[in-house]
């Protein structure tokens, strides 16, 4: 479904990712693990079109998207839930969610989508008229996920869902992502450690210094504690 081949990307003159290749199959859930500063966020930004790759090819659903604008990538059904949530601070929870359904094909179904999202995130259903800037960290994370689900997503890319959250909230967030996965959506998640990916990932990649160094099924990878320790510390 998603196929990345020899991707190279960076900012200004500096190269962050080089010759990176990965695949996510239909309905598959893939996790990329890597330490901070090794290119996880850059990888997602290059796929979603926020930055333009300097070389390499990204294919999604059979079409090449590496030369397309971010809005076209969204239209194709590839949705990126960014690091730090990036809510629209002066819009309400409801308005934030509606913006997730901005594309015409999603906008037509926004009422039905809203019901689904509110069912998945009761915490959002309780405060539709609250401004996003006054939400707590956990609520913001739920809003970011909910906003992503308002689209006609086929594949959800999630950037470090535990970042900056209080420990007691983190398991909640991963449980929600497991629930999202059960709906049949493909998932590409990047994370700093392997603590929460059991029951979530089918396959795991290890990222180091801008390239993928190891790949395997989640069972095999999680058993190899020495390997994980060496890469993730």
């Amino acid at each position, binding site marked *: 479904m998603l196929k990345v081949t020899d991707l190279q990307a960076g900012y200004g003159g500096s190269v962050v990712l080089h010759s990176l290749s990965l695949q996510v199959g239909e309905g598959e859930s893939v996790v990329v693990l890597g330490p901070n500063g090794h290119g996880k966020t850059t990888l997602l930004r290059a796929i979603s079109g926020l930055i333009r790759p300097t070389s390499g090819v990204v294919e999604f659903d059979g079409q090449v998207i590496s030369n397309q604008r971010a*809005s076209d990538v969204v239209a194709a059904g590839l949705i990126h839930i*960014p690091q730090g949530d990036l809510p629209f601070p002066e*819009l309400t929870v409801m308005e934030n969610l509606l913006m997730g359904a901005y594309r015409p094909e999603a906008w037509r179904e926004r009422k039905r989508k809203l019901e689904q999202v509110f069912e998945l995130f009761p915490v959002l259903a309780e405060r539709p008229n609250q401004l996003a800037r006054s939400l707590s960290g956990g609520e913001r994370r739920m809003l970011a996920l909910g906003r992503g689900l308002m689209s006609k997503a086929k594949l959800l890319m999630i950037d470090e869902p535990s970042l900056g959250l209080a420990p007691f909230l983190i398991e909640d967030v991963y449980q929600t992502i497991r629930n999202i996965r059960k709906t049949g959506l493909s998932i590409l998640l990047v994370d700093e450690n392997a603590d929460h990916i059991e029951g979530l990932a089918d396959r795991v990649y290890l990222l180091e210094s801008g390239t993928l160094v190891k790949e395997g099924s989640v069972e095999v990878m999680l058993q190899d504690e020495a390997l994980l320790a060496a890469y993730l510390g």
Partner: protein
Amino acid sequence: MEKLFQAIYGGILYGSIYGLMAIGLTLVWGALRMLNLAHGSLYVVGGYVAWTALNEWALPALPSFALGVIAAALVGLLIQVLLINRLLGRPSFFNAAMIATVGAAIVIESAMLLIYGPRVKQMAPVIPGHFKTLGVVIQYQGLVIIVAAAISLVLLSLFLRKSRYGLAIQAVSQQMDAARLMGIPTVLTFTIVMAISAGLAGLAGVLLSSVFYLAPTAGFNPMVKALVVTIFGGLGSVKGTIWAAYVIGLLEAFLQVYFGAGWALPGLFLFMMIMLIIRPTGLFGMGEVQRL
């Protein structure tokens, strides 16, 4: 007592005009983080086109005004498509775009000078005449301006809060990366913002050309006042700008009535300086965010 009513009426009238002018500046700032110094020349375009339709083509008032607004919106659209969209994403976009808009203003004002000549023009008021109440002389045209401005500002607020495109404009202003990740086409949104902003400047020009004289550079003063209003209200904040427009309008009118017309402008700028020292981001400002 008469002075008080005079000041209140004058303040609301000024506030309406400043609101129309300033809201466009603030929308453009919010979406693009760009200072549009061609805003005053769009005012002039609206005024001249409405004047032409009314006096040369002998059209009725309403269609003439509509033509003025549409013409200004189209010129704004052209500025965006021909100049600003090409500068997006360049380093030092802010400076480049600001200088580009100064260039556009010079071109537009020179074109008006070539077409209409240096002699000032004045439009007949929509409803001539006046009445006197509470010791204040109220021109019907003044009421037309107040009502038209209020209707436009309410419609604009509804558009921004309720419609898909309006929400998208706010989304782009508040969190550009997230807006792109929602699939909002940013360049299209910028272009819509610019056209709306220009149309509002055009409307101000249309309405005011029956109060003040119309000349190629007549938009400069309203633009400077609108700049004071936007800075006071907080750059990028629609709510803050509407509040600020009426506060500044009332302040100006009170200064004029109680201290004399000569105090109005220095008083305003003094007020703005104090305001900026106490609250640098204005009433509801979004502050300085670098992102283009």
